[in-house]
C-alpha cells in the first residue's frame, strides 16, 4: 500500500494505461511515484512504452507543413533547457543535481506537482543517467547507441551505472579526449573514489583491429590499460588510478586477444589527465 492507498497489484495493473497516457491525473501521479521506487514496474513501463510507440507507427506518417520545422527550431532557440549542469568540466555532485527522472513518466503530471514529486521521490540511483547525459552533452560524446539486444542492453545498463557512479563521486570531473584534428571524441571520467572510466565516441575498430587504451606517464613509456571494440562497446574502466600528468591515448592495434607491449597504430584520441 503506498501513501495514496494503492496496493502494488493495483499500480502494476495501471502501468500499461500509464504508458498509453490513459489515466486520470491522480492515478497517473500515483503510478509515476511508484515507478520511481519499483524497478520491476519500471521495466514493465519501459516495455509498455516501447509497444505503445510501435502503435504510433500504425498511424500513417503524414507530411507536416514545411514551416513547422523552422517554427520548432526558432522556439527551441528561445527555450532554455532544463538545467543540468554546474560549470564545465566539473559535474554537479549527485545531491545537487537537478530534476532526475525520465520525461515520459514526468510528463503525465502537471508541472507544479511534478516538481514537488521529484523531491519526494528523489533517490540517488535515478540521477545516474542524468549525470551521464550532462557529461555526454557537454562533450558531445556518443555514449550509448540505441539498444538492439537484451545482452547489449544489460551491458549498456552496467556501463551507464558505472559512469553514473564515477560522476556522482566526490571530486568527479571530466577530461576531454580529442582527435588529431582537435575535435572532442571522448572523455576520461575521474573521481577520488573510482578508477578512471574512458568513454570514447569511436566507431567499431577496422577489421582485424581493436581499440587499445594506453596510459602514458609524464616521463615514461605507454602501458596498455584496456581494450575496447568501439561502436556499442565504448566505455571501459581502467585497472589503476592514474597520476596527474598522465596522458591517455587510444590507438588501433591488432585484435589478437591480448594487450600489447607498445602502441603501433596512429593515435585516434588522446588527452592529459589532471586529478584536480
Amino acid at each position, binding site marked *: 500500500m503506498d501513501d495514496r492507498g494503492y496496493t502494488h497489484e493495483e499500480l502494476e495493473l495501471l502501468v500499461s494505461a500509464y504508458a*498509453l497516457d490513459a489515466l486520470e491525473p491522480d*492515478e497517473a501521479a500515483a503510478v509515476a511515484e511508484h515507478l520511481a521506487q519499483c524497478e520491476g514496474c519500471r521495466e514493465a513501463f519501459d516495455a509498455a512504452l*516501447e509497444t*505503445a510507440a510501435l502503435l504510433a507507427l500504425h498511424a500513417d506518417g*503524414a507530411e507536416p507543413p514545411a514551416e513547422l*520545422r523552422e*517554427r520548432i527550431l526558432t522556439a527551441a532557440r528561445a527555450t532554455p533547457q532544463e538545467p543540468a549542469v554546474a560549470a564545465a568540466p566539473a559535474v554537479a555532485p549527485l545531491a545537487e543535481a537537478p530534476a532526475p527522472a525520465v520525461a515520459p513518466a514526468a510528463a503525465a503530471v502537471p508541472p507544479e506537482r511534478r516538481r514537488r514529486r521529484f523531491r519526494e521521490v528523489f533517490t540517488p540511483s535515478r540521477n545516474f543517467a542524468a549525470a551521464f547525459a550532462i557529461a555526454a552533452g557537454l562533450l558531445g560524446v556518443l555514449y550509448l547507441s540505441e539498444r538492439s539486444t537484451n545482452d547489449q542492453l544489460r551491458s*549498456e545498463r552496467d556501463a551507464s551505472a558505472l559512469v553514473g557512479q564515477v560522476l556522482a563521486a566526490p571530486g568527479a570531473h571530466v577530461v576531454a579526449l580529442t582527435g588529431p584534428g582537435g575535435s572532442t571524441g571522448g572523455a576520461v571520467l575521474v573521481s577520488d573514489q573510482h578508477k578512471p572510466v574512458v568513454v570514447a565516441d569511436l*566507431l567499431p575498430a577496422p577489421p582485424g583491429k581493436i581499440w587499445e587504451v594506453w596510459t602514458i606517464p609524464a616521463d615514461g613509456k605507454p602501458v596498455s590499460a584496456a581494450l575496447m571494440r568501439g561502436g556499442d562497446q565504448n566505455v571501459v574502466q581502467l585497472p589503476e588510478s592514474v597520476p596527474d600528468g598522465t596522458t591517455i591515448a587510444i590507438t588501433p592495434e591488432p585484435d589478437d586477444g591480448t594487450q600489447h607491449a607498445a602502441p603501433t597504430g596512429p593515435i585516434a584520441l588522446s588527452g592529459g589527465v589532471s586529478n584536480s
Partner: protein
Amino acid sequence: MSIRMASRELSDASLIARCAAGDDGALASLYDRYGRAAYGLALRIVRDPALAEDAVQEGFLAAWRGAARFDAARAKASTWLLSLVHHKAVDLVRREEARPAQPTADVPEGAAGDDVPGTVLHGFERRRIDAALDRLSTPQREVLVLAYFDGLTQTELADRLGEPLGTIKSRTHTALARLRVLLADEGQTET
C-alpha cells in the same frame, strides 16, 4: 580515423545528448528523422492539422528542454520522442470539450494524412503492427485504439463501453502485454 562527428551520422541517442548541450542542429536532425511520424501520430489523435502542429511542436520542445534527462538505457530515442508528442496530443484533445461521437473516424478531409501512404520505411513496421493488432480480440484492440489514438482515459473507456472500470483496467493491461508478445513473436519468425 573514424570518429563520428557529422550529425547526420550520429545515433538518435547522441543527437539527444547534443540537444542537451544546446545544439539546435541536433534537434533539426531529430525532426528530420521523426517529424513525419510524429505529425502523423498527432494528426490521428487530434484530427486537426493546426492542433497536430501544436502537439508536434510542444513534443519536440519538451524533448529539447528535457534532453538531459533522456536515458538511453531505458528507452529508444524514437520511443521517447513519440511518447512526448503523444502525451501533448492527448493533452490537447482532452482540452477540446466537444469530441466527435465516432472517435475512430479518419482525419479530416484534405488533411495530409488522407492520401499519404505509409512511407516505405514505415511500411514494413506498419504491416507487422497491423498483423499483431489483428490477432488481438476485438475488445482488446478496441481498448488500445480508443485509449492510444482517441485519448480516452480508463474511466472514459468504462463509460463509453458500459463496462466496469476494473474490467477495462485489466483488459488494457492484458491487451498491451499481448500485443508486445505478438510483436516479439513476429520479430522472431521474421529473422
